[in-house]
């Protein structure tokens, strides 16, 4: 008898908590919601402004500079496919969502990752928090996001950012921790302050690990963006959802293919981005 009531009590408590947050912070929430939404929309408009072939060529150039001629060709063909299948707007929609969410996630994850590596008390908090966020199914925070932020891009950004930021934080933390001890000790021996050691030694040494974190963040953001299509994320996610709900197998395959192409393009470009700084 008692256990039956207990779970009802907990559920009621959870409901009330979400409601309470919604009511207490309604003004803040709507400001944030509006702000994030407009950023995504603005980026979307920006990317849609030029004629499609210009955008394709620009991405092709970016791909060339980061990953070479073959990837440039692949990028161009891949984006051409999206256009030809009438998925251009949707692709750009997903792209803007991914870019805004990844930027937001990295803005928090990288500094927090650095702090977590250097300050023990912070890492004691972030470790279990990351475990929690990474194992919890993202659908779980979809609903509170909807309630609090509304059925628009901001809810999607919120959900995607939360899913994407743990790998970036973890890998930044790992990268900094894995800097060889001798290099840090040498820095100290020559009178560098902790800040100088961070900027002149640790970040350089941790660079490739942090880049991996950024890349992972991007990839997870992309896959979450598709799921977020269900809650107002728009883009290819919405198209997939539409196709699946109306049982259009052909359309769902097209959209799936577009998502994969976008993933490959973004992955290669982000992995190759250090190459922009290297002169041939």
């Amino acid at each position, binding site marked *: 008898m008692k256990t039956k009531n207990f779970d009802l009590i907990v559920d009621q408590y959870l409901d009330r908590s979400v409601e309470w947050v919604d009511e207490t912070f309604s003004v803040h929430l709507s400001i944030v919601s509006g702000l994030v939404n407009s950023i995504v929309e603005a980026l979307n408009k920006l990317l849609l402004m030029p004629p499609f072939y210009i955008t394709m060529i620009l991405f092709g150039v970016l791909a060339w500079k980061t990953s070479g001629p073959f990837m440039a060709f692949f990028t161009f063909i891949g984006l051409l496919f999206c256009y030809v299948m009438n998925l251009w707007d949707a692709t750009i929609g997903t792209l803007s969502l991914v870019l805004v969410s990844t930027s937001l996630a990295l803005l928090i994850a990288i500094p927090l990752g650095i702090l977590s590596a250097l300050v023990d008390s912070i890492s004691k908090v972030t470790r279990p928090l990351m475990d929690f966020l990474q194992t919890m199914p993202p659908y779980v925070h979809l609903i509170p996001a909807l309630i609090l932020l509304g059925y628009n891009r901001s809810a999607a950004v919120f959900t995607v950012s939360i899913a994407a930021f743990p790998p970036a934080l973890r890998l930044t933390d790992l990268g900094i921790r894995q800097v060889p001890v001798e290099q840090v*000790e*040498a820095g100290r021996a*020559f*009178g*560098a*302050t902790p800040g100088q050691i961070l900027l*002149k*030694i640790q970040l350089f*040494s941790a660079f490739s690990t942090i880049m991996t974190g950024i890349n992972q963040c991007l990839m997870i953001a992309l896959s979450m963006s598709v799921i977020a299509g269900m809650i107002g994320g728009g883009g290819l996610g919405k198209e997939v959802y539409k196709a699946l709900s109306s049982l259009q197998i052909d359309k769902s395959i097209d959209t799936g293919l577009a998502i994969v192409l976008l993933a490959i393009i973004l992955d290669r470009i982000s992995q190759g981005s250090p190459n922009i700084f290297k002169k041939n």
Partner: protein
Amino acid sequence: MNNQSDSLPVKCQHLWKIFGLREEEALSACLAEGVDKDYCLSNFDCIIGVRDVSFTINQGEIFCIMGLSGSGKSTLLRLINRLIKPSRGTVFINGEDIGTLRKKELHLLRNDKIGMVFQNPALWPHRNIRKNISFGLEVRKIDKKVQNQAVDRAIDLVKLSGYENYYPKQLSGGMQQRVGLARALASDPDILLMDEPFSALDPLIRRKLQDQFLDISSIMNKTTLFITHDLDEAIRLGDRIAIMKDGVLVQVGTPEEIVTNPADDYVADFVAGISRLHLVYAHKVMYPVEQYQSLYPDENLVNIPQVGNDDDLYKLTDIMVESDVNKLAVVRDGRTIGIITRRSLLRGIQGFTIEDVDTP
């Protein structure tokens, strides 16, 4: 504090370093009851790194600290620039207690007054050679021109001119270590701390670098604290040697003193295999002339070859062989002060001093 200690580059007083969570308890036990390291380990889970070490280093001296792994020598080195904080005791650099320095002052001390060379060169792989060497100056935001001059000077000293734009991974181990040395010398520090700098190199390169270091050292006259586990190296380089065991300073002295007068069996064992030829001098293998004459009053001592008080066994052997004689006269200020016989010379080469040789 007397004036003399103010001018000493390095002075350590009763330094202790105990590693472990229960550091203070272990320290108290050691101070009150004089417990040993096994007791500390089993009762407090603590390791005694450095145990009541006191010594001084003179200006321009190369002071070698020698010991096996775990003797505490690397810990002691790091107490000097406070990379490790002592559990107890004081370190004076140029008369100043570095424990009282604020953070900024400590950074400045490490930057400006102390240069460090590591066993693994610990060069920063993302910086080229020039930027590795200039790191200390860069940290202090010194003017670029001045930086470049200092780098050029340092690179020239270690004979690596032309490699400024290379990266560490393009250089061999020996070259990397020379860069490490240049890096330590760039800011023209008063004191050099060297942690087994040549231990990771192969024997031929090691000898070359030792020679190069001796050259540089004589030019720059820097006070140096040099850690090594190689007794040959310590004897070659050191003006004075300190032998450490289990965190304790067992003996401090010149190479000759250590080799001829080991303080205990541990040191005696250590130095047993060392060649005495360049370490022991005439005065250690000679019979005082009065004693010799009283034993052999009839012998003619006028025409035997003369040698100096400070001639080493190698030279004495040379002279005795070339002159084809059995006796040498040790002369100081024009006066014969001692006689070296074939017996005492050969026993000296074996490692016995004159006191051990009964009859001439």
